[in-house]
């Protein structure tokens, strides 16, 4: 099908045991795919967590996913950030590159261009921290491959709508 599109969906949930399993189980049980998923508590007093999930599907499937999410009892709100006006998305990655000599210098030079920060270094390795769009992270990681890339840890996408309004 040609009308498959990537959507970023924000979900506010009660931070209670099993809630993440419910969300993940819904995706696996109904055959939807998860491209990325992040979760953390955003309101400690009310015990509310925010889940950001990136998924793809036809408009009908995306509509289903949102309705199914909304049906879960601990879910407060579901918003499609891809459809609901403009939003910003960011991802954070920690990237470890090992090597010496020219490759090491080249990795540092590229990191500078990409505004990645060095947060750990030894004589034979760097750990870069980088924040940006998924595409930008992908591009940087690809450049690091021939330069001694050994380990990657990524957070997955977090997203928020632009403008003054809350979810």
């Amino acid at each position, binding site marked *: 099908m040609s009308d498959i599109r990537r959507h970023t969906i924000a979900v506010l949930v*009660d931070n209670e*045991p*099993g809630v993440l*399993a*419910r969300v993940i*189980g819904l995706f696996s*049980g109904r055959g939807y795919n998860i491209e990325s998923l992040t979760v953390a508590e955003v309101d400690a007093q009310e015990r509310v967590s925010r889940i950001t999930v990136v998924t793809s599907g036809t408009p*009908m499937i995306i*509509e*289903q996913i949102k*309705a*199914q999410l*909304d*049906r*879960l*009892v*601990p*879910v*407060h709100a579901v918003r499609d950030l891809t459809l609901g006006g403009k939003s910003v998305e960011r991802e954070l990655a920690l990237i470890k590159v090992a090597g010496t000599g020219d490759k090491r210098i080249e990795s540092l030079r590229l990191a500078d261009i990409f505004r990645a920060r060095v947060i750990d270094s030894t004589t034979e390795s760097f750990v870069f921290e980088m924040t940006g769009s998924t595409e930008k992270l992908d591009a940087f990681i690809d450049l690091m491959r021939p330069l001694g890339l050994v380990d990657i840890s990524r957070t997955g996408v977090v997203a928020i709508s632009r403008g003054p309004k809350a979810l």
Partner: protein
Amino acid sequence: MTDQQPTGAEIVMKALADQGVDVIFGYPGGAVLPIYDALFKQNHVRHILVRHEQAAVHAAEGYARSTGKVGVVLVTSGPGATNAVTGLTDALMDSIPIICFTGQVPTHLIGNDAFQEADTTGITRPCTKHNYLVKDVDQLARTIHEAFHVARSGRPGPVVIDLPKDVQFAPGTYISPETVTHRTYRPQVEPDPKAVAAAVDMLETAKRPIFYVGGGVINAGAEASRTVTELVRTTGFPCTMTLMGLGAFPSSDPQSLGMLGMHGSYEANLAMHGCDVMVALGARFDDRVTGNLTKFSPGSRKIHVDIDPSSINKNVRVDLPIIGDAGRTAAAILAEWKRRKAKADRGALKAWWKQIEEWRARNCFAYEKTDQVIKPQYALERLRELTRGRKTFITTEVGQHQMWAAQFLRFEGPNQWMTSGGLGTMGYGLPAAMGVQIAHPDALVIDVAGEASILMNIQEMSTLAQYRLPVKIFILNNQWMGMVRQWQELLHGARYSESYSDSLPDFVKLADAFGAVGRRVTDVADVDAAILEMIETPRPFILDMCVDQKENCFPMIPSGAAHNEMLMGPEDRREATVSDEGMVLV
């Protein structure tokens, strides 16, 4: 208990009493002994001891569906909980409100592979509407009240409350139901008036309209069925029902086209195929109903009323979705229709009915009349005639007999018909009938069964005996897993792989062994007398009706086919026309 706090187990009993629960279905075990002890010491709640936990859930389903109340189940940890899983899944698929308490090992042992430990909340997460593990006794009362709210509101469903044994012993605070509201769960019940007005616009101009009514109307309460009936009669439109919706509109009414779908009536399926405006009320466009989706009702604009937004546009794109309770929405449509003094397009409607009558004249449920062998359809027709005028509840098992029961019995009102529609669970009918009989001690409760299905929960005969429940088991004994045999005949070259019911018990002796009455009928001439004896006998009864072994259930929409591609009878073989795509469908 003046200043002493109640224990968790006592809180359970108190919460049940405050929720108006008068009966629970259960089976004891180590992890629920404190609750059984609390049960022993009170007399608000009656406990029905089943013989298998699956049956406890089905019994609660029968109880719930025949009363409109929430059915309650109590089982132990581990095997008790896992045995309940089929029942929970059944209740989820058919949207039946159930609360199921499961015992759990004490909190400090959870995760240790303790004796009779199972990850009950993990296992039941996908087969419940919601579930809870209560680790703090002070949260117990709130959780139970919340669980009842979740089970019965919106689209109803089963809710599991997993209770570690230490929590059952611990003293805690009780709070009453009025003080509990759910933080977020508030399903939309009232329809959007703009959508209602748009629906009436569509109905007013419809040329070939149809109401397509599902189990959501039954779930919305008896009043909803009355409202839908009035709406259908006021508009003069035809009305078809799903397997789960039977009884929402009186089947004796000339505007009823009967059931639609795979084994539905010719007129219902062709009217669905040919309509120009379809009003789905509490129905979910299930694959048994729609047949081939790409060919489903191609020329119609569709209105879909459902309390569950995820049902909308799931299988079929609709033109006008209305989120709301089926009964309230039907009432709103009816009110708007009356306010406008709306009139249907009389001329068009007349032509539409003329067409429908032609389809109806095809008499699609006709079968061969013979006195050589008992036709299952004949047995059911006689059952229908001989129970006429009595307060009768029908449950079924799963198979051909279930479809024939849906085709040949008549339901004039809601809550009289209990069947496993979504999950298609063999073994549902007997325990469900038990639950119905508990709720309606004086009614005639009949489980229309197949000889294979009935063996799946036959142990419940013992429960019937213990509680003197005069449930009637009406076995259409064809010695085959008939529905399986039918598919093998039509789709697998008549290779009858493992579908013969070999080594059946003698059902008459089996009845006797369980303290029930058993009769076998092999002769057409004896059918009436045996049915009458069954009805008159105030005890559990097995009627072993030995029917034609070869009979198949028609009409049938083969897998992958459309509503207008029905097989009408045995002469109408279309083996060759079932597509590869159709073959993989169930």
